[in-house]
């Protein structure tokens, strides 16, 4: 696809929401850093992480997808142009986590970097899954789901008997945590690849002659 089409695809991205979401996440991390001596440090950071994931869910919003699918611009190519925008919430989240690690003292906040990657991936994975069901701008729904999931997964740790997903207290970063987040990334990538194929293209079948 030409750069000209790519530019128009990028121009059609929901920039106000994406920039607003990143700004909201940055504000949450900023308040967390300001309140680092109180008990609200971790919960506020969690909200920031959730906001990064929720913002990433808007990257694929394409109100005119129904029309664009009928034009000779492949869905995968369009999404390929859109995907680098997800680096924006990822950059805000990972940058904030590294900054919090500096100001937060002994706690290893940089261990939350995989959580940032996981939440951004979950946002995109959920959005692409919802796009496959015919919602061409699933950001609102996928964003809310991602936000809730990230906050639950890190705050409540429902799988703590098996694996700790935000190991802030342990002396070393557990291998099981890295494996768990790698699985989340791979799973979201698989969902994304499966759901973002061109809807009009039939599956390739080898004919037996």
């Amino acid at each position, binding site marked *: 696809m030409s750069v000209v089409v790519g530019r128009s695809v990028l121009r059609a991205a929901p920039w106000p929401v994406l920039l*607003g*979401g990143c700004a*909201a996440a940055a504000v949450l991390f900023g*308040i967390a850093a300001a309140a680092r*001596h*109180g008990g609200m440090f971790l919960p506020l950071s969690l909200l920031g992480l959730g906001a990064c994931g929720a913002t990433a869910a808007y990257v694929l919003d394409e109100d005119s997808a129904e029309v664009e699918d009928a034009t000779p611009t492949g869905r995968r190519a369009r999404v390929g142009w859109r995907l680098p925008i997800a680096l924006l919430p990822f950059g805000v989240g990972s940058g904030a986590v590294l900054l919090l690690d500096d100001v937060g003292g002994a706690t290893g906040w940089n261990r939350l970097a995989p959580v940032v990657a996981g939440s951004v991936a979950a946002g995109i994975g959920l959005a692409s899954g919802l796009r496959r069901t015919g919602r061409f701008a699933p950001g609102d729904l996928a964003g809310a789901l991602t*936000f*809730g999931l990230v*906050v639950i997964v890190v705050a409540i740790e429902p799988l703590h008997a098996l694996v700790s997903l935000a190991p802030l207290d342990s002396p070393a970063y557990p291998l099981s945590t890295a494996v768990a987040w790698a699985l989340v990334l791979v799973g979201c990538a698989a969902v994304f690849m499966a759901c973002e194929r061109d809807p009009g293209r039939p599956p390739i079948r080898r004919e037996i002659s």
Partner: protein
Amino acid sequence: MSTARIALSTSAARPVLTPLVWIEAKRFARHPLFLAGFALALLASGGEYGPVELDHGFVPAFFVGIFGLVVAARLTASTRRCEAVVDAAPVSETTRTAALCAACLVPVAAALVVVVVYQLALALHDPRPAYVYGVFTTGERYLILLILPVIACLGAPLLGVAVGRWLRFPGAALLVAVALILWGMLAGYLPSQGMDASTWPARTLHMLTPYTAWVDSNSGSGATWVPTVVRSLTGSPAWFAAWTLALCALAACAALLHGAEGRVRQAVLRASWGAGAVALTSLTLAVVTGYSVPHDSSSEGTVVADSRTPLPPQP
């Protein structure tokens, strides 16, 4: 002419409203986000979740209330694409908004189920020692455990309807949800942020929120899961309930005000002023008549009033 119109509106609106309420309630109850939140709230309430029972209100308030806010906003905004057709129907926007507001009873019912399931789950375990309830009376405990979470699950979806009517940019519901959580967290847990909880500004800020915390504890994880000290925070639960109910009424009025005309608009405005007055009065009473200082209740049976030291770590 005006008499005829009023007669029409009162006699015709009710038969129209009831089926609309059913339709909107079914849409709410079938929404995947509401179902996901309800299921998560039940999962978090089925076991022995959390060390301090009085903090459980956070579970329905977050999973049913906050998720309900987004659902209500989406349901309200979903008719925007076919606004031209919907506006041509012989049902006013106010009636449609009223139906959406009435459909917010679905999350209220869900919250009621969640708090009852939690109480049933607790009944299966050993009875809790009295100190984990702090200095609150039996009536106040029931208010905190059963009534306040349910009111929170009414108010948030009502706010969602107002957001859906007034804010038209994508991500508005999520932004309001995050702002609401932030407001509740910062104001509700003021004592955890090194602020002297017994001062007037701190007591006012602790009540000036749609959701507040009533206890703080030194619970940890693993073996230190059950706290040894529980700190009861300031304020009156009964007047706080009245304050949050008034906030619910204000949210409903804000939603109904969009598109309201003539006498209906005047009535909604009058109701808003009334709800505002009730909110202000109940907020003042919640600050003035409630507990004025934090109390620390320990596992040894001692109660220390006006505790200003940070909660001690568990031995």
